[in-house]
């Protein structure tokens, strides 16, 4: 998964950065970094979804070291990217299943339509290619054809999929899935869940129940709770992370749809606020379209920096 990831991430992000690139170019071709220039830079970060507060913090730090300098466009982008990369570097941590767990149980959660099911397919492929044997649980027993969707992913990536009859209790199914994964010696168990809005407490309770039931078999499970975020989401992502973290102890984030025009700048605010690891990013709809989250490449993408 790590091979040549910067160039591959860059490829995925390239299109999304074009807009900001041209914006920056227009704004900052060789000029003095004065208040006006900095305000424009702040605006550019806001349009990348950093949010007004995070954009202001980044620019304030930037101002301390750069104010009044005569800069070229490339310099300004490079140093702004460094500023942001420094915030992101501590959270750029890949997810490696712990071989001590048999299986390493991964619960995948998030609001509706963010890319949970697709990401499970992608992770399963990545881990299979790494020589592990993943097993999937079709824990979205609510949405129409969600089970069939995961089954197709299972076929695509060669991972068995545990399913139950329609409207089965997701927690019971997860329990059965874990039992089977243990019996069959799977290395990783990926549990899909129905999308749910974080402000619906009954649905959040359901997730907690899944965890409680898993713990009857393995007191340490789930070993990872991944929150899948859509890069198109604006500032509401902060509230999503806050509530999911509080309710189900999210251990890491995956940001999807970075192949689009959205730049996912809210990740900067998330890193500052929650410091949760960002394990990977989704850059397409295919099984291979998952990349490790790389702080400097992501930051470069945010400011529209082209890097060799």
């Amino acid at each position, binding site marked *: 998964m790590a091979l040549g990831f910067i160039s591959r991430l860059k490829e995925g992000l390239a299109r999304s950065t074009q807009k900001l690139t041209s914006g920056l170019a227009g704004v900052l071709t060789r000029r003095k970094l004065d208040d006006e220039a900095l305000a424009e830079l702040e605006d550019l970060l*806001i349009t990348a979804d950093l949010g007004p507060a995070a954009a202001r913090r980044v620019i304030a730090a930037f101002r301390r070291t750069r104010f009044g300098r005569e800069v070229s466009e490339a310099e300004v982008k490079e140093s702004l990217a460094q500023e942001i990369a420094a915030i992101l570097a501590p959270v750029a941590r890949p997810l490696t299943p712990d071989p001590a767990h048999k299986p390493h149980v991964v619960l995948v959660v998030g609001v509706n339509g963010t890319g949970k099911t697709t990401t499970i397919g992608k992770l399963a492929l990545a881990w299979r290619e790494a020589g592990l044997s993943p097993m999937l649980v079709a824990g979205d027993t609510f949405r129409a*054809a969600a089970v069939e*969707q995961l089954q197709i992913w299972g076929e695509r990536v060669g991972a068995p999929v545990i399913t139950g009859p329609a409207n089965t209790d997701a927690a019971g199914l997860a329990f059965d899935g874990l039992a089977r994964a243990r019996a069959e010696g799977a290395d990783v168990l990926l549990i899909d869940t129905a999308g749910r809005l974080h402000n*619906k407490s009954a649905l959040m309770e359901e997730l907690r129940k899944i965890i409680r039931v898993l713990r009857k078999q393995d007191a340490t499970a789930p070993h990872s709770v991944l929150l899948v975020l859509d890069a198109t*989401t604006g500032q509401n992502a902060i509230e999503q992370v806050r509530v999911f973290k509080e309710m189900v102890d999210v251990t890491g984030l995956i940001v999807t749809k970075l192949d689009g025009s*959205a730049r996912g700048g809210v990740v900067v605010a998330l890193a500052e606020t929650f410091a949760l690891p960002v394990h990977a990013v989704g850059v397409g709809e295919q099984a291979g379209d998952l990349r490790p989250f790389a702080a400097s490449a992501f930051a470069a993408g945010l400011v529209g920096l082209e890097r060799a």
Partner: protein
Amino acid sequence: MFEGLSDKLSAVFDRLRQRGTLNEADVGEALREVRLALLEADVALPVVKSFIAAVRDRAIGAEVIRAVAPGQQVIKIVNDVLIEHLGGEGAVKLALNAPPPVAILMVGLQGSGKTTTSGKLALRLVKREKKRVLLASLDTQRPAAQLQLAQLGQSAQVPSLPIVAGETPTVIARRALEAGRREGFDIVILDTAGRLAIDEELMAEVQAIRAATNPAETLLVVDAMTGQDAVNTARAFNEALGITGIILTRMDGDARGGAALSMRAVTGAPIKLVGVGEKLDALEEFHPERVAGRILGLGDVVGLVERASETIEQEEAEKLAAKIAKGRFDLDDYAAQLRQINRMGSISGILGMLPGANKLMGKIDESKLDKTVFKRQGAIIASMTRIERRTPEILKASRKKRIAAGSGTTVQEVNRLLKQFDEMSGMIKRMNKLGQKGLMRHGIGALMPGRRPPF
């Protein structure tokens, strides 16, 4: 931590309200806060800028300077401009006046809610307008997408086009309209695969579908929590297809929905419907004045009144309002409220509709305010004696144990209920105080069915 636009604006306007006159500097300060709040609400930056300019133009004029209560005047201007920018008052209907079968094309990004909304729309058209509707999925991209729509059709009891493996989207679209003609359908809803605005190949594909089907409505389905990218998406889809309407999904979430303003500004297309849940009946008309109210913290009073008059018996509502107005209520009233809430929807939804209530909402643990929890709480209260319900202070350990056992719950849940009751009575007291200050003027009063909403 999460401060809504409503909170921000009420803070600014509280300050404005306290001043006698208003000058350019005041307006400037208020607008800086409005700008920030709009950005936090995910309104796209260029749209924020033009919105602020429009408000400024109108605010720093004779209108305000001569106004008796300048603060009120600014609020009104912001609210008015917001309503205008959201499309003006009233809902915009779908334009379905064309020879049948009328095609409706659903487009948008991946995961925005197109398929679910197709199902909802079908159900709505069948139920409310007695149309004969055919559903057709042109999504050959996402695994099991066609099956998803077929299953939704089944639960809505709306026929869907038989799935033929291997067909291209355009071929399916033609077959759908052909079936529509042959089998006498009024409307054919065409659900498409999600696509990125910058994906030229897939944008060309949907253009071809549009050309082949000549839809009466091309509806862009957008997630209400979309951030700054809303403008890019809206522009690209509009340029490629000529959007005739927007559907905003997941309005049941707690996103401020700034995307509504962005989308509308970029496309000029009206927002016609909003999705408010995952179930097939969770589709409502979009009323700009209500959403503006929600954004500005003036509350969706209209919506509240409408929903309240549908669900609350007048008598019970009056009793409740009287109790609340007195600022003290006991666990019996609390239980009565639970029953009301069960009929009306979540309490956060109701409070969200009340002017100024947003400010207080942050102080309540929302995760504990939920219908299913309320049912258990109803059981707990039912297991109390009359005296206990009147004077919850006397509830000590042994009583709690008895009540928990009697209601099949735990002492923790009893404690939680009591804490929540405390919070709620505290909040109601604060709501009353606000009421006297004027913020809540229309809130509780508006609970009474039949009264005209203030705006």
